[in-house]
């Protein structure tokens, strides 16, 4: 460390500099070196993440490397012991995979139990790694997103989310990368040196949805509107917004996710997944509204909820009422209610919808889309609400046409338990061994006279 804080490095290719690259990380190297070495930091991060030398553009990605890259974007939890559909399923194999990710792919070890049996590792928020992971996913032709996700979900004990939340997080991540790819082909390094791109809400959503669907968004008026907010179209309202995210964080507690928290993690380039059993939403993407300053009161968000199967071919307004930002505790009624003039966006993804579409939601009365009101019964917030149905390249840009089958397979994998039962040669018998375990009649037929009308997902 004396070297890091003392003498400067004479030559970036000197033996001593290469030696330092081995041990020290990004910030230390940056402090010791000059502008010419920024590319070395970028390259070092890629090498360390992939644990690979040589020409990176010809790299054939192993499943471990795919897991490393995706983990830095999606906060994948590989510590689980859930059923793995292919390959090894023993606990030692799973432990070994976690330890390999810690040893070779920069996953952070956060717990070593006394019996040394189950080491826990997390893909901690480290913006530089997420940015190089984005670079890898965008620039390395041998990295295929749908293939990588399928491989990783088949090989690691990862929760997909019961309703496909992981898939939607992937779509947003890919949309962000599409924007970067199309507008910042050579972002790094530059002087002055932004390491990560800044983009607007419109930039993100115009790369998430196809042009026709996005034009529906642009022309939409508020679905729910504060009395003091003008009735303006989406395209004008979200013109001057700024976002910075290249990865997701999975908070451990529900009550952590409030607006100040979202500003803090935005500073790290992160958006938030919902905590376990989070009511109202599955992920939140913060943005700054009409400012570049990290000001809490100027922060809005895109609230996302995911449904797997299309119970409602017709969008259900009750779902959006449950996404009221005050009811979800993203905002506090007393402190935020009086002047929450920043508009928000709420999107429900109904992934199993049979007819792909994007619909702007309107309500017959304001009370249908909101749950929190002022003394005059006006909503306390302004929101533009949308219902996206289906997983189709006609609607979603990240769903490329030739990979549609893989995305459909991934969608089918969200129901892990169903996969467990359906692999039996007698799935009805296997389901009967778990009475009341699901919505399938096989869980009930053996012991109940009439089937109860279950609201299946």
């Amino acid at each position, binding site marked *: 460390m004396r070297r890091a804080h003392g003498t400067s490095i004479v030559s970036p290719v000197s033996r001593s500099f290469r030696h330092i690259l081995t041990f020290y990380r990004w*910030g230390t190297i940056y402090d010791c070196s000059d502008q010419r070495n920024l590319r070395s930091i970028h390259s070092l991060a890629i090498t360390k993440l992939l644990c690979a030398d040589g020409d990176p553009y010809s790299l054939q990605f192993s499943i471990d490397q795919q897991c490393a890259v995706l983990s830095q974007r999606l906060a994948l939890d590989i510590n689980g012991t859930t059923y793995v559909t292919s390959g090894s399923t023993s606990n030692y194999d799973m432990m070994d995979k976690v330890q390999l990710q*810690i040893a070779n792919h920069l996953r952070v070890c956060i717990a*070593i139990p*006394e019996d*040394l049996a189950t080491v826990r590792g997390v893909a901690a928020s*480290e913006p530089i790694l997420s940015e190089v992971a984005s670079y890898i996913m965008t620039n390395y032709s041998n990295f295929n997103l749908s293939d990588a996700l399928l491989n990783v979900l088949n090989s690691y004990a990862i929760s997909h989310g019961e309703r496909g939340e992981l898939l939607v997080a992937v779509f947003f991540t890919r949309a962000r990368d599409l924007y970067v790819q199309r507008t910042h082909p050579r972002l790094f390094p530059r002087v002055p040196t*932004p390491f990560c791109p800044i983009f607007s809400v419109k930039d993100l959503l115009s790369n998430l949805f196809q042009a026709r669907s996005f034009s529906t968004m642009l022309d939409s008026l508020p679905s729910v509107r504060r009395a003091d907010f003008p009735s303006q179209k989406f395209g004008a309202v979200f013109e001057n917004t700024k976002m910075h995210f290249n990865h997701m964080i999975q908070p451990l507690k529900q009550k952590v996710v409030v607006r100040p928290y979202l500003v803090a993690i935005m500073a790290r*380039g992160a958006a938030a997944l919902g905590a376990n059993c989070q009511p109202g939403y599955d992920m939140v993407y913060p943005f700054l509204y009409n400012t570049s300053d*990290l000001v809490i009161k100027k922060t809005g968000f895109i609230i996302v909820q995911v449904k797997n199967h299309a119970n409602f071919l017709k969008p259900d307004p009750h779902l959006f009422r449950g996404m009221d930002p005050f009811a979800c505790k993203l905002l506090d009624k007393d402190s935020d209610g009086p002047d929450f003039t920043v508009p928000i966006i709420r999107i429900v993804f109904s992934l199993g919808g049979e007819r792909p579409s994007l619909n702007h939601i309107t309500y017959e009365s304001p009370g249908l889309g909101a749950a929190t009101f002022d003394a005059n019964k006006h909503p306390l917030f302004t929101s533009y609400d949308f219902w996206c149905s289906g997983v189709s390249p006609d609607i979603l840009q990240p769903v490329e046409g030739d990979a549609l089958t893989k995305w459909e397979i991934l969608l089918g994998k969200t129901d892990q338990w169903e996969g467990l039962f359906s692999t039996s040669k007698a799935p009805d018998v296997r389901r009967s061994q778990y009475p009341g375990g699901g919505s399938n009649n096989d869980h009930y037929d053996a012991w109940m006279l009439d089937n109860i009308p279950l609201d299946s997902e």
Partner: protein
Amino acid sequence: MKPEHAHRALKKLIKSLGPRTGRDDTIPDVFVLFDEAHALTELKTHSNRTYFIELRSVLHDLGDFSLFAFFLSTTSKISQFAMPKDIDQSHRVGQGVLKPSLPFSDLGFDHLMRTRKIFDTFKTIGDVTSTECVVHMGRPL
């Protein structure tokens, strides 16, 4: 090297350090650091024991001395140094007679951000997306 050679060498080293003065007696006289220790996890020739296992055995024999040994590695699996007792090659560890120390991995994060915090040094979205900010977030080593 025979075990008695290691005993003699360590005795000689401790003697050459001179008498302890005003120090906490709980602090060992000698610390030994094995850096890049994953190299020790290779199997010995014609043996199913690794160099680390052999070294661990020797260090155990030096247990009466005031000695503490560190093994550092950034690229190894934890199980190469600390494995569950039912798969440890040592009979005594397997029977619970000896208990290996737990590996230490709590090194912390964002050390280099302590003098340049968000909302203090970095206040805008332009600031937090700059190289200056991004490279200082994360692990130190």
